[in-house]
């Protein structure tokens, strides 16, 4: 954290002058600006190309929808704020994400940053914003990698510090484990679990013997077979399949890349290994990946962050989750994906923050307004009140709700997510019970 304290010296002053000159520059381009009308420039870093591109699929629809909704601006006291969104592509690369975040701050002179789509995107951008003292709201990354991953020494909880300008809303590993075990407990199994954990940030976090799945599963009476960390993008999973067969595994879990899971799942079937449940992170997040697996994807299960059945509606448009999903499907001709709700919620929070600030030039005021958010969004309540979080993360993190679902083939031949477990949040209705894979 020495880096931060050095860069704080003089940075505030510099930024304030920079922001003031930025306002002047903007004034030249837009001649007829009212004295009290001010455009809030939102910077948005998104992986539009590269391996994470599927996350960014909802960008265009969501941003256009937001700008349309707030076309007349947002009123805050006597002031009226308009919005402009500047999107930059991270190319799915953390270094590139940091670079474009800097460009947004220095060249585009944005007022607020938003960022989403995996720790590879959220972390570098949040870190840059913290250093540059630009308020930043992020989502779509479990809170542990976002919070702990940005600490100077992730291994020493005593050294962890909170952040002043960066705020995050999403769920955590503990919620995921609760959802998975709730789903498994619906089935009659021998409680033998097989883990597929790759040698990457997610795989190591899930498989961590102290803070990951092993101790949590152990506490709930499940036994875990963890053959070891494999390299991503493999063409052969026989070793894992043999290990699972040997330990009579009936439940498979893991955080796997889509092509790797397809390879594993196909090979498992070829070699006669069919578990009763397979709860997988990452690989089956997007309907396109599930449809690509084919018929054997029936009843694969995963955590559900948001769905068209969630009983929430947008504070911006009033649309329910179901209306938003069908709107997306009819406008793009593609199945809705879970990032849709969360990206929309990011914009909801921005609009809500704008209603509660006096000046967007004061980043401390904006950050304080973000921290004071108490909003019912399309993904549920968002308020940085520290509920259900360890003390160190209470300031910067708020948790969203997580339930469990299974992919099932609909009559039109497409796989759709069916919520099968709501133990963690009973207000979200289930549409069925957990079924065994056959």
């Amino acid at each position, binding site marked *: 954290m020495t880096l931060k304290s050095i860069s704080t010296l003089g940075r505030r002053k510099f930024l304030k002058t920079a922001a003031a000159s930025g306002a002047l520059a903007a004034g030249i381009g837009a001649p007829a600006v009212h004295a009290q009308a001010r455009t809030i420039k939102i910077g948005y870093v998104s992986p539009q190309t590269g391996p994470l*591109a599927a996350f960014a*699929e909802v960008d265009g629809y969501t941003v256009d929808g937001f700008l349309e909704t707030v076309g007349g601006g947002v009123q805050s006291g006597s002031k009226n704020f308009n919005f402009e969104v500047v999107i930059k592509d991270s190319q799915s690369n953390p270094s590139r994400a940091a670079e474009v975040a800097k460009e947004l701050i220095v060249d585009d002179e944005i007022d607020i940053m938003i960022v989403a789509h995996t720790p590879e995107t959220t972390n570098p951008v949040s870190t840059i914003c913290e250093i540059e003292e630009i308020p930043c709201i992020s989502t779509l990354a479990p809170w542990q990698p976002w919070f702990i991953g940005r600490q100077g020494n992730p291994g020493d909880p005593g050294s962890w510090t909170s952040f002043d300008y960066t705020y995050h809303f999403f769920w955590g590993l503990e919620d995921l484990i609760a959802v998975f075990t709730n789903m498994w407990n619906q089935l009659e199994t021998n409680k033998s679990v097989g883990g597929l954990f790759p040698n990457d940030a997610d795989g190591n976090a899930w498989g961590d013997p102290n803070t990951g799945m092993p101790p949590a599963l152990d506490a709930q009476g499940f036994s875990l077979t963890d053959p070891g960390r494999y390299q991503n993008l493999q*063409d052969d999973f*026989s*070793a894992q399949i*043999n290990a699972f067969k040997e330990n009579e595994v009936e439940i498979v879990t893991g955080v796997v890349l889509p092509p790797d899971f*397809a390879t594993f799942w*196909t090979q498992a079937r070829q070699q006669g290994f069919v578990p009763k449940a397979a709860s997988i992170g990452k690989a089956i997040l997007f309907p396109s990946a599930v449809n*690509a697996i084919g018929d054997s994807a029936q009843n694969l299960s995963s955590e559900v962050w948001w769905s068209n059945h969630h009983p929430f509606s947008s504070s911006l448009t009033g649309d329910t989750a179901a209306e938003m999903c069908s709107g997306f499907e009819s406008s793009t001709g593609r199945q809705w994906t879970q990032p849709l709700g969360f990206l929309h919620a990011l914009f909801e929070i921005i609009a809500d923050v704008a209603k509660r600030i006096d000046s967007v030039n004061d980043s401390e005021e904006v950050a304080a307004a973000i921290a004071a958010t108490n909003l019912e969004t399309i993904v549920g309540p968002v308020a940085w009140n520290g509920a259900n979080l360890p003390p160190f993360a209470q300031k910067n993190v708020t948790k969203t709700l997580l339930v469990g679902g299974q992919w099932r083939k609909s009559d039109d031949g497409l796989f759709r997510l069916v919520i099968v477990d709501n133990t963690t949040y009973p207000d979200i209705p289930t549409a069925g019970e957990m079924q065994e894979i056959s």
Partner: protein
Amino acid sequence: MIWVDTIVQGIMLGGLYALFATGLSLIFGIMRLVNLAHGDFMVLGAFAVLVGVESLGLGIIASAILAGAFMFVLGYALQHLLLNRTLGKDLLPPLLVTFGLSIIIQNGLLEGFSADTQRLKAGGFEEVSVQFGAISVGAMPILTFCSAVVVILLLNWLFYRTETGRAFRATSDDPVTAQLMGIDNNRIFSLAMALAMVVVAIAGLYLGARATFDPLIGPSRLIFAFEAVIIGGLGSLWGTLAGGVVLGLAQAIGAQVNPEWQTLAGHIVFLAVLIVKPRGLFPRTAG
């Protein structure tokens, strides 16, 4: 029993790697061109088959034949119009150009087909397996292995039994003398690339049918293809098959010890071969 299974699965994996590597081996053997876009061409081949299946409504075999023809034309045009201009004493220009092609293909596919994960559906054949005692081996891996053998048999026939093959070998051995004998090197190179692209389309077919693929998956397969070529020995197609099998076995056995060793074991064997036999296991006799 697990070890027998591991070895069988390793050999099957080797067949896949050999198929990935044959196209690479072919063009490196004939024109010393290192094609860094090889993996992306495989993905392009898979997408070509996908277009046949999903847009034209053809069966997977018919689509594959069509994709093969498409890749043949593409390969010829690519070599004739672009890559021939980069060939020369310096190895760097073709390397840079194919690197650029790799990026162009990836992003072109991303634009055209979105980031969606795709699969070539083989109507349930993916999950069929054949039982050998206690070991079950997938029909798809067996077919992959057999295809690799057939492809190499056909290429060898072409190389050693036809006039075109003689021209290929002559150009590969001594391009200057070959030219003196009335062989049009550029045409031979274009033909070789076209042929290699057909093999690449076959590799793409299996890449896309055995699991899922997306526009950006190509480069991850490139390194295994390279290793198979080097282990087997440059210029020898049977060597490439052997190289693929050695690599597949090393990975399967490594993974059985510990999945952390899967990729590493392959790399270690590759390095060991480079140290013990720098020219590979079955180098073609020096020309």
